[in-house]
């Protein structure tokens, strides 16, 4: 689960990482009030779960409350890489002397947390890594031994920070960031930029924070932060129905059981010349009711022209899937969708017979995954 800047900063504050004072606002008027309360110039920042908001005009300096209201009006409703701005973070403006970068991520390859630090902050870290790799200090932490003070020293001295007061402040932030990373089950905590003010104060000017979904049960307060308006509305609906669904931009609806087979099915549809409309994993259980829910989710996407069921039964029983398809056809308006069905594995024959016995013209059985994909692509083309 990705957090908004203001949420990540809330977590930073909890572990003692310095951030600027700020207020949330969802209307230009609230932005004005926030600026009044904060006093002095403020920065009006779009809260969106994507990068590049600065270039897209989502971050603006405002000299006074009236200006804050005007800038808020500009930014609210902006579409930034497909994310519409509903929320603003109004923050006291900071003078910036230098911009650094600090992050800790989950290094899956090394199976260890990885710190990265550079004094070349304020730009994308990938760019630093590519153009000036020596300026980027990378350091792993042993997950059992945990954080040790030398880690902070290696980052700070290795990164070339020379001022002793800065060294000390950054070392403290490094240790606290590790605590945030572990305590909040984070997969990523990034501070970019980590700024030094003209007065020599170091603080986090932005936050990028990703929490492990599997760890959320330990953090009910963070789990409540999930913003249904942030995701695609169909994905939000899918989450409510407990259906694993990712929207793509095509016209062939895809259902499979299992994530790997699901990804492969999407690929094979593309390989057959089609454009998959989604990724959808029925999951291990694959009850008839689950099939109805998944079809309800998929058909919310108005682009869908045909549907391809690709089931390889293991725990999932093909007869159950077949019953689910028939139940959905009764309960939902499925008249627009030809359905291609490929069943194999557990109880596949029974499943095929159930569908055949239903004698419906809109159900198209196919014997293999590849043939099924081809047929679904063909039918989507015919329906377009």
């Amino acid at each position, binding site marked *: 689960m990705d957090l908004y800047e203001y949420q990540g900063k809330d977590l930073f504050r909890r572990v003692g990482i310095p951030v600027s004072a700020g207020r949330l606002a969802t209307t230009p008027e609230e932005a004005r009030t926030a600026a009044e309360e904060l006093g002095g110039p403020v920065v009006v920042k779009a809260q969106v779960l994507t990068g590049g908001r600065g270039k897209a005009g989502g971050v603006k300096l405002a000299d006074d409350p009236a200006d804050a209201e005007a800038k808020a009006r500009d930014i609210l409703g902006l579409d930034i890489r497909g994310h519409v701005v509903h929320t603003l973070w109004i923050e006291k403006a900071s003078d910036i002397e230098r911009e650094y970068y600090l992050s800790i991520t989950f290094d899956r390859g090394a199976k260890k947390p990885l710190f990265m630090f550079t004094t070349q902050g304020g730009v994308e870290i990938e760019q630093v890594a590519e153009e000036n790799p020596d300026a980027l200090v990378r350091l792993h932490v*042993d997950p059992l031994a945990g954080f040790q003070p030398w880690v902070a020293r290696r980052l700070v001295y290795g990164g070339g920070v020379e001022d002793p007061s800065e060294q000390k402040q950054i070392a403290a932030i490094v240790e606290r960031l590790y605590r945030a990373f572990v305590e909040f089950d984070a997969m990523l905590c990034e501070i970019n930029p980590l700024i030094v003010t003209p007065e020599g104060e170091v603080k986090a000017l932005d936050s990028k924070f990703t929490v492990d979904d599997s760890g959320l049960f330990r953090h009910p307060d963070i789990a409540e932060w999930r913003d249904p308006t942030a995701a695609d509305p169909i994905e939000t609906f899918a989450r409510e129905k407990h259906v694993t669904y990712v929207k793509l931009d095509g016209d062939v609806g895809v259902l499979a059981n299992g*994530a*790997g087979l*699901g990804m*492969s099915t999407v690929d094979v549809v593309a*390989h057959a010349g089609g454009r998959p409309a989604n990724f959808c994993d029925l999951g291990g259980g694959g009850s008839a009711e689950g099939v109805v829910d998944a079809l309800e989710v998929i058909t919310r996407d108005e682009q869908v022209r045909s549907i391809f069921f690709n089931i390889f039964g*293991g725990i999932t029983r093909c007869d159950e899937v077949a019953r689910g398809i028939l139940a959905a056809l009764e309960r939902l308006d499925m008249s627009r969708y030809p359905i291609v069905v490929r069943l194999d594995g557990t109880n596949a024959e029974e499943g095929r017979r159930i569908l055949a016995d239903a004698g419906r013209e809109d159900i198209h059985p196919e014997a293999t*995954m*590849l043939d099924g994909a081809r047929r679904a692509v063909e039918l989507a083309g015919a329906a377009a």
Partner: protein
Amino acid sequence: MAIILDNDTRLVVAGLTGSEGRFHGLRNRAYGTNLVAGVTPGKGGQDVEGVPVFDTVADAVTEAGANTSLIFVPARFAVDAIYEAVDAGIGTVICITEHIPAHDMLRAYTYFRGKGTTMIGPNCPGVLSPGKANAGIIPAEIFSEGGVGLVSRSGTLTYQIGHELTQLGLGNSTIVGIGGDPVVGSSFVDVLEKFEADAQTELIVLVGEIGGDEEEKAAAYVAEHVTKPVLAYIAGFSAPPGKTMGHAGAIISGSSGTAQGKKEALEARGIAVGTTPTEVAQMVAERME
């Protein structure tokens, strides 16, 4: 021979008295796996269709000679079950449970790797050595014994490829589902090493997917250490960046972890990558002739 599971496997199921543990545990036994014990705290002394249940894994080791643990307990208790198995001296741990917090697995991984335990999973379908033993949820009936080693991050995709192989008359030494989480107990490299050392395995099929860099590492490892032919399939060419595709580990971050990148890394090391499961199976058949 085969790897991880064989005729010497003595299986204990953690969570045998739960509905999933019972269903799959007994299914594994019906296949011929030597299921010697179950573990459920507080239910020691009971039995599940004749399989004795113990309070602790240590008891299952001492009293029933268990050497392999299959974990079916809920996510919040699964990591504890892993530690318990490792500390009881279990050499092979297979964990089916999904949604284990990544930080918990990170610590557990560092711990059991230091102990030399073979761990498969979590969030995996398990391991099947056809004709010998099955531990997990892989539908054994669609596989037959043979010379193809199969290792995969995914369950159903493995069945799909295994099924295509079976239809071409090819069998498997062992099928290993390493799991789709960000931190899994055994990587492709770990399993490749075992297949390379296994006399029964003649050819290896590696089934990868987007996310992480384990496929890239596997490619490098194969080039240096594997003498047997290796073929591959990668899922997720159509996946958009930044979205997890069902598995917590299946996510493209920035420019890393893409299917295309993995395909290129594999091909650069001389490992042919099939475009569809069907094509991979055909490629295997050609090599095995």
